[in-house]
């Protein structure tokens, strides 16, 4: 989905608040939320793509205002409700107040069966696709051309796995893009390498 979470290249943000610290959590609830997400994945209640998509489905203002661990918690709570572990009303009762959850999901999609693997060094183009469900293609590479630098072992295709449509295994290709291709005349000179699922790619013309 073209959601608020898709931040790469978005302008208007200020400096990074770069603090080097050994402290991981600042409040006990942050540790607890993180532990909870790990336990629910380990228990098989949801997979990582469903988890990520539940975060993406948060109401856009809620997403931007929430801290990282509030997003973690909101995904866990939303999936617990959607999978029948509990109800929104029960959570609000237990919490003693409102409990904002993610917005509903839409159908996912299957991967393409008609795409062959790409070779290292091959020029590829990211398909000009607009997918309303879960997808791991950041908007800034849509339609852009890059070069394959390496291939991964097969992973579950996120657009299916994020909607509990099964583990369709396909490799990703680390595709290197020039920033001049991504944001012509409006970026620092560099390359950005993105791990792109095979189904998102086509041969460059």
């Amino acid at each position, binding site marked *: 989905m073209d959601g608020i979470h898709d931040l790469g290249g978005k302008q208007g943000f200020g400096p990074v*608040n770069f603090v080097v610290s050994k402290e991981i959590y600042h409040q006990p609830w942050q540790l607890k939320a993180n532990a909870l997400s790990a336990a629910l994945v380990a228990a098989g209640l949801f997979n990582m793509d469903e988890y990520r998509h539940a975060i993406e489905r948060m109401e856009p203002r809620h997403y931007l205002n929430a801290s990282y661990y509030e997003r973690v918690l909101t995904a866990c709570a939303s999936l617990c409700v959607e999978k029948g572990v509990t109800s929104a009303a029960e959570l609000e009762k237990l919490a003693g107040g409102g409990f904002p959850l993610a917005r509903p999901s839409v159908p996912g999609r299957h991967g393409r069966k008609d795409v062959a693997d790409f070779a290292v060094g091959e020029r590829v183009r990211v398909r000009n696709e607009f997918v309303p469900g879960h997808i791991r293609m950041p908007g800034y590479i849509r339609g852009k051309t890059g070069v394959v630098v390496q291939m991964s072992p097969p992973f579950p295709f996120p657009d299916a796995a994020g909607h509990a449509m099964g583990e369709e295994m396909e490799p990703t290709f680390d595709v290197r893009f020039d920033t001049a291709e991504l944001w012509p005349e409006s970026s620092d000179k560099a390359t950005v390498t993105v791990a792109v699922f095979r189904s998102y790619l086509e041969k460059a013309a």
Partner: protein
Amino acid sequence: MNSSSDNIADIARRVDAVEAAAMGQGLVRPGHLQQFTHKVEDEWTPAVGAAIVAHAWSNPAFKARLMKNGIAAAAELGATMPPHHRHLVVLENGENLHNLICCTLCSCTAYTVIGMPPDWYKDLEYRARVVRESRTVLREMGMALPESMEIRVWDTTADTRYMVLPYRPPHTAGWSEKQLAALVSKESMIGTARLEPPYLQPAHEQAKGA
């Protein structure tokens, strides 16, 4: 956001509510918090990655294995990765080559190896800006790279995980692996720090921790 948004429950109570609901269904076992805390505090620390880096600097055969298959090589030193991290790609910095990791869509990292991601890595500013303005962002973060230094940014959009193999500082010739590992910070394995002069400031940690 929803009809209750004017009266949102305290975040700690919301966490407890979900935990209670999950425990009630047997999805979360008693003791899970202690186990997770142990992992985060004692197992998944940057010391794991630092040992890998120091060994790779000291042992060319290990380094070759690490560059070829990160997970298998890391396992030689006892490092493990979660099942959904299916690939570990090690990115070697050079004297004129700098690698930098981010995750624009969420905040993925190889956390069992380099440690849990720092706050700033998860913040919207880093996620939004670093792919488009890497040199500017690094300069703002205190590391002004010369124009001659090539920058490669890696966006962790799939379950391949990346770690930076920092450039070994020239003055460390002859150091033991233990001495070398003590140099290697989490930031250097993400790519927001380098370890050789003039980038490494003696008072780096203190200066940035203000």
